[in-house]
């Protein structure tokens, strides 16, 4: 199970990367893709829509099951990775390269409330 040090994580298996412009890129972790198995469908949130923290905002489906992707911090969606939605199997190939959407957080300080790599690894192993 890979958990890169430079990323933040949620207990619901999203990873979060802070971009140079202060927006946050969001994907699902390597652990999550391994549990889901072959990913065949991705429904991304509409750009411009606001979501609260923990709110389901996207859907990922594998051959086995459907799963929600939750908003890691409150904010507005500013970009969606449509290329990934057309080739969702890339999530299996490299979960940390497969960003799904970017958000502008309502409050940049909320990022501090996310898990670091060690805390997430401990959570995922449970």
């Amino acid at each position: 199970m890979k958990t890169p040090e430079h990323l933040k994580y949620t207990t619901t298996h999203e990873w979060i990367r802070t971009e140079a412009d202060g927006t946050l890129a969001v994907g699902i972790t390597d652990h999550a893709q391994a549990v889901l198995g072959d990913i065949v469908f991705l429904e991304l949130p509409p750009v411009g829509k606001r979501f609260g923290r923990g709110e389901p905002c996207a859907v990922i489906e594998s051959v086995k099951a459907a799963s929600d992707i939750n908003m890691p911090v409150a904010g507005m969606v500013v970009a969606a990775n449509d290329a990934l939605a057309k080739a969702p199997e890339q999530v299996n190939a490299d979960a940390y390269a497969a960003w799904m959407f970017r958000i502008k957080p309502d409050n940049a300080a909320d990022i501090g409330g996310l898990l670091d790599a060690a805390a997430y690894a401990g959570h995922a192993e449970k």
Partner: protein
Amino acid sequence: MLKTTPLNAAHRALGARMVDFGGWDMPVNYGSQIEEHQAVRRDAGMFDVSHMLAVDLHGAGVRAFLRFALANATDKLRDPGGALYSCMLNHEGGVIDDLIVYFFTDECFRLVVNAGRAENDLAWLGSLKEGFGAELELRPRRDLAMIAVQGPNARERVWQALPETRAATAAMRAFHSVNLGEMMLARTGYTGEDGFELLLPAAAAEGLWRQLLGCGVKPCGLGARDTLRLEAGMNLWGQDMDESVSPLDAGLAWTVDLDGARDFVGKAALLARPRSRQLLGLVLADKGGVLRGRQKVSTPEGEGVVTSGTFSPSLGRSIALARVPLGVKAGALVQVSVRDRQLTAKVVKPPFVRNGKILIN
């Protein structure tokens, strides 16, 4: 505490993702489930299905007992080794389980039943047996392991691993079996491809598994087994039918022999309650998600329900089996509730795929 098969350590050594499958610790996939699926469609794959239970029935009363206990007519079985798919019904005509019955001799038959239904089936067969009063013994064979080797090259790979079995099985037709020493080789399966199901003593299972691995047979998990059987249009107990569903409403009328004077458990109920639904296939036309069990299907003839749905690796789109009103016809377009939206699906007659070929358009 989960139950384990004799191949549990072999699965773990291969890095399988193990899941609780109805109380059994089973491999759902080893790597990519889609690659495992394609290996079976194009070459050869193997499944540990040792969680299923073989039940041997011995005694002079066996034929008469099975004639009464099963919905299909076991009297069709005349050649030793012959096999037949059948439902076992309750008195209300619901499906207690579906199984394959193998005919060895007039005093010995074997049933292979679903893992999750095994205890229930044994209790049911035991109770029927008492009422029947025939000279009959039920022997659950927990001492056996079962490996399904499936795919266009499956038989060739089994012969490579077990050269001594070739002569006895090369000319054996589908739905036939042979016992060689302590191993039973049956030309049956649950994938829509050719192949064998091998039943053998538990202690010999890991050795055979390794030999098959060495011959290039790809280990496949229960995830691929489900997408393969669904593409092949084969029912799964607990999803496509159960104790509350008549086999006539679950696409299984072809397995129920209502002809003639033979009485069997559930017959009176089936005759009193004619077919009211049908099981058809759906192919999702929209790319908006994946069909899954319990989704609502809206048709001009009324409402139906998805009983099994998945993503079909062979078709590259989502497919399903659905129980729908009788008037719905192949080619019709229906609406399926997928999460919060209505998606269009085309009705087709299953199977979707058999012997590597796509059968729908």
